[in-house]
């Protein structure tokens, strides 16, 4: 089976992002569980904000972290795409999200319908910048946001799947 970029296969590139080249490492860990593309933790695992460690060498370069759900409220009818779960700016290179400015605090994923994707996207900022807090979480647009604040293309991204706690796991045959 041909292996493509997981972000493309999972349609994160397409639904949320434009194609980009990964240049910075991005590590997301919930407790002891590291998130890889396409893994499927339960909501109870991801209820609290994860530890996010970013690469880069220069602590004078600042990065913006965005976490969105493009499948809200359901993947077959994502009227609320994208639902903003977390927004942190001014993260110094080679540090973590806790060193940045939390513009929008972490909201626990609570998918009720279907299997949702939850994507972390990292952007490099031109400099320190003041970012206005969005008025609401639903219908956030990562591309537009990047355009407004001159963030350019992403430098890293990772996503996972999540369904409701009692979910049966989706299709059995494919």
């Amino acid at each position: 089976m041909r292996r493509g970029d997981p972000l493309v296969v999972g349609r994160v590139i397409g639904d949320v992002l434009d194609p980009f080249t990964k240049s910075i490492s991005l590590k997301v860990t919930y407790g002891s569980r590291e998130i890889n593309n396409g893994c499927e933790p339960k909501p109870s695992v991801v209820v609290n904000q994860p530890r996010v460690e970013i690469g880069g060498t220069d602590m004078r370069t600042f990065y913006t972290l965005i976490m969105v759900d493009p499948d809200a409220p359901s993947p077959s009818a994502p009227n609320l795409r994208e639902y903003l779960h977390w927004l942190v700016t001014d993260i110094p290179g080679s540090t973590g999200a806790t060193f940045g400015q939390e513009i929008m605090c972490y909201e626990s994923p609570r998918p009720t319908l279907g299997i949702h994707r939850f994507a972390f996207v990292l952007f490099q900022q031109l400099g320190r910048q003041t970012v206005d807090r969005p008025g609401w979480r639903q219908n956030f647009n990562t591309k537009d946001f990047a355009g407004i604040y001159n963030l350019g293309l992403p430098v890293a991204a990772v996503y996972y799947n999540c369904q409701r706690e009692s979910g049966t796991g989706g299709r059995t045959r494919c």
Partner: protein
Amino acid sequence: MWSSGGEEINNIYNSSSSQSSNTKTNTNSSSSSSHSPFSNLPRRRTMEEVWNDINLSSMHQNPTNEHYHHHQNNPIIGMNNIQEFLARPFSKDQQTGHVNVISSNNKEVLSNAFGSNAPKPPIVLCLNSEPDFQYLENNDHPLRPQSRFDNNHSNDDTSFASPFDGFASPSGFYPFSKRRAPEDEDNTGDRRLKRMIKNRDSAARSRARKQEIISSLPL
């Protein structure tokens, strides 16, 4: 016209006619056979005679019927002869509690008339038998689209209300047949198409997830 009717009734009422008149005609014919070529035949009762017989017998049944007293010897309808009776306008008001829905038949008219005003005389008057009254009055009968409308209003039965709103079932007499409007058929087609598209999207997402899992496996 009446002569043929008279013959019909004559056959039915022959038993009711007084035996004396028959024997009279017989003796008459036998005694004076030379009078006419037709004298051998029994004398035919006319409609008038039958009508009078009916009136008289009903008078025995309903002696207190004041309404018709001013009409001489006509206790039932107040009409002098059967032509008058049959010529009267068709209207429900003349009868009590009967719905003249489909009957254009003289027989039914007669039986309706007699049924409403008096208990049936023992004479064979019932051109229609009793069960037919049940048939005509039964509002639930499927062959009566009119009464089905009444049922709709009174019963508040949703199973009837939707397919038959405003018109009788075009397929006629089967209350459970559904005739879908073309609009509905188009909608179901659209719905199916949408459902199919959604299904395919779901399948594609599922395949993508599966591929992710496989690609993350160690080679």
